[in-house]
């Protein structure tokens, strides 16, 4: 709508295009009015809920829980863990890992991680 008059006179025609024109014109006129911030943003920011900070004891507590769980499993199934360690030892003693192959694997892992992070944070 290009008219400067936000409330154009209704036409004599019997159709209801005048109502459509009126609603469009009022919409254009009202969108053109900028409502001054007048402290609104500051009030919103002040009212934002603060991020819930995790208590200081939470991290060591969780670590202790995991440690306790692992120790409990080892005590409950000692033969399983002995066999698991023996198998892992046998597997690694058969393989020869060069420093270059370990480095290449690390670089590939890092590239994959950064690529995934960049993709998920990309600008739409």
């Amino acid at each position, binding site marked *: 709508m290009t008219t400067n*008059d*936000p*409330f154009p*006179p*209704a036409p*004599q025609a019997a159709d*209801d295009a*005048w*109502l*459509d024109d*009126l*609603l*469009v014109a*009022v*919409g254009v006129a*009202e*969108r053109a*009015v*900028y*409502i001054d*911030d007048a402290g*609104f*943003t500051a*009030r*919103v*920011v002040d*009212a*934002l*809920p603060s*991020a819930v900070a995790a208590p200081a004891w939470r991290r060591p507590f969780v670590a202790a829980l995991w440690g306790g769980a692992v120790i409990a499993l080892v005590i409950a199934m000692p033969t399983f863990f002995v066999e698991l360690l023996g198998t892992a030892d046998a597997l690694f003693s058969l393989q020869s890992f060069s420093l270059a192959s370990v480095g290449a694997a690390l670089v590939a892992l890092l590239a994959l991680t950064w690529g995934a992070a960049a993709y998920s*944070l990309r*600008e*739409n």
Partner: protein
Amino acid sequence: MAEPSVSDAQLIARALVTDDRHAFAELVKRHQSSVRACLRKLTAGNHALADDLAQETFILAWRNLASFRQEARFSTWLYRIATNSWLAHNRKRREELLGDRVDAVAEGEDETMPHSDDLHADHARGAALKIDLERAMGALSESERAAIVQCYHNDLTHEEAAYVLDCPIGTVKTHVLRGKQKLKAALAAYAR
């Protein structure tokens, strides 16, 4: 209007990843005018209520920022939250009214609405039309008013309005059509 150097998406990412309140404040500054204007329209010009609901809208946006999937523009997502806040406010108000004496309140509302004939004598035609349009909008059902505000005031497509109102596109079209029929009847004097 010049494009802002930092996009909405970048500000949202900052607010999400580093809990950056300054980034969110910038988003509020950018969108406060349109959100408040939309709510002023929905609340039929009740500026104080509109601003309260706008504040609630931005706080809800902050809390739910992680759920914004960029399937719509950020402004459209804000309109959706704003409209839901307005509908929730109306529901709450209706429940409160049911607890009180509904008739007494309804009579009180009628007293605050001056009769259109009294206004026409003193106002220019454009001003009278605006007042009558506001009044006619106020007489529409919530769904019809919301649909007309989204499609005409916020200039959204039917598809975007359907996203904001969380209903099918056909329902939006029906609400707009019915709303316009009622507006046409209420403003018939201006069509002659």
